[in-house]
């Protein structure tokens, strides 16, 4: 019964991940800790496998010409993967209450990021989502920010898409559509850089991971399918409300209230 609930949770996270270009970890870690009462490290280990599954699911069924800039992704991943390894090595040595508070802050940041995305989407009339006449700039700043995104990703079990897209779009001047597609490609690599640290430490439990990852795979493919049929604005609005509730719960948990 719990396996079925884990599968359905995975489907939900995967659909949102596929629809919104996020890894899905931002929903999975709170669900696994608050609803299923799994320890934080196990939730993070499970979430990292799920983030890879979202990235794989989206990549497997995505429409041609989504515009991911593989070259940009790999150059930034040099710093992000390095940060993810460092974050993975720090895991288990940091107080879980502190991590819950950090997670809550990241959740709030993600909610604000989605509001920002909504405003950008509304302004698309003046801005092209996909074009090739761009030249990424401010590489040193972007690489430093990418390293930080990798550390946060490994510590909290999230893909970090909500950090990567603003880095590419706001700092480097990459078009929004290409930044989102490139982020989808990157989250899998970032998660992979720390998942084996969690694997080696025994934080990956197949009976939890397998139903969740299978659900996420199905959900991510469904999310890509729904992308052309649903109004993403509605999903985004519902998600912002959900994230704010989750953030408050994680904050209370972190403060021991």
């Amino acid at each position, binding site marked *: 019964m719990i396996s079925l609930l884990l599968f359905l949770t995975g489907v939900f996270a995967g659909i949102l991940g596929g629809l919104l270009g996020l890894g899905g970890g931002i929903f999975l870690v709170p669900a696994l800790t608050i609803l299923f009462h799994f320890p934080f490290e196990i939730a993070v280990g499970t979430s990292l496998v799920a983030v890879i599954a979202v990235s794989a*699911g989206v990549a497997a069924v995505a429409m041609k*010409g989504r515009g*991911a800039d593989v*070259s940009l992704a790999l150059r930034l991943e040099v710093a992000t993967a390095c940060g993810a390894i460092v974050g993975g090595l720090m895991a288990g040595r940091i107080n879980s209450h502190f991590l819950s508070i950090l997670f809550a802050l990241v959740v709030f940041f993600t909610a604000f990021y989605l509001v920002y995305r909504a405003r950008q989407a509304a302004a698309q009339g003046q801005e092209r989502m996909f074009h090739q006449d761009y030249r990424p700039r401010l590489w040193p700043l972007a690489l430093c920010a990418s390293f930080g995104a990798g550390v946060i990703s490994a510590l909290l079990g999230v893909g970090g898409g909500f950090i990567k897209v603003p880095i590419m779009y706001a700092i480097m001047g990459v078009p929004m559509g290409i930044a989102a597609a490139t982020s989808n490609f990157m989250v899998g690599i970032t998660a992979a850089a720390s998942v084996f640290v969690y694997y080696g430490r025994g934080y990956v439990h197949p009976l939890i991971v397998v139903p969740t990852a299978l659900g996420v795979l199905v959900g991510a493919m469904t999310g890509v399918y729904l992308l052309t049929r649903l109004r993403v604005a509605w999903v985004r609005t519902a998600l912002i409300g959900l994230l704010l509730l989750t953030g408050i719960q994680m904050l209370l948990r972190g403060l021991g209230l």
Partner: protein
Amino acid sequence: MSEIVKPSTADVESTMQKVSLVIAVVASTLMIAGLIGLAAAGNSLSLPGPSVIRLNVLVGLGGGPWGLIAMSAGIVLLGLLPAVRAFLAMTLYLRQHDLLDTVASLIVVLELLFSMHA
């Protein structure tokens, strides 16, 4: 709205799409078979359950019920997919004599391999 993709990126994306699909299907099959096998063998499915089988033991195909081995192998295969994608990108960039992207891909592959031993 037209979506223009650089030719080299289009090649890389197309190859990665096929590889992602194949690996996702094989990994899912292993995980499902392992879960069914574990249940069929009468093992307890209570959570959180056993941890994954360690990589060095997994390579030797020993150290636990085959259902657990299959599930662990599926998880490892899924975990290796991003490294495979980076490796594919590296070979494609190498063929295009794109030195900077070849080196960046190589570093990412090496980082991912290092993380397996960290």
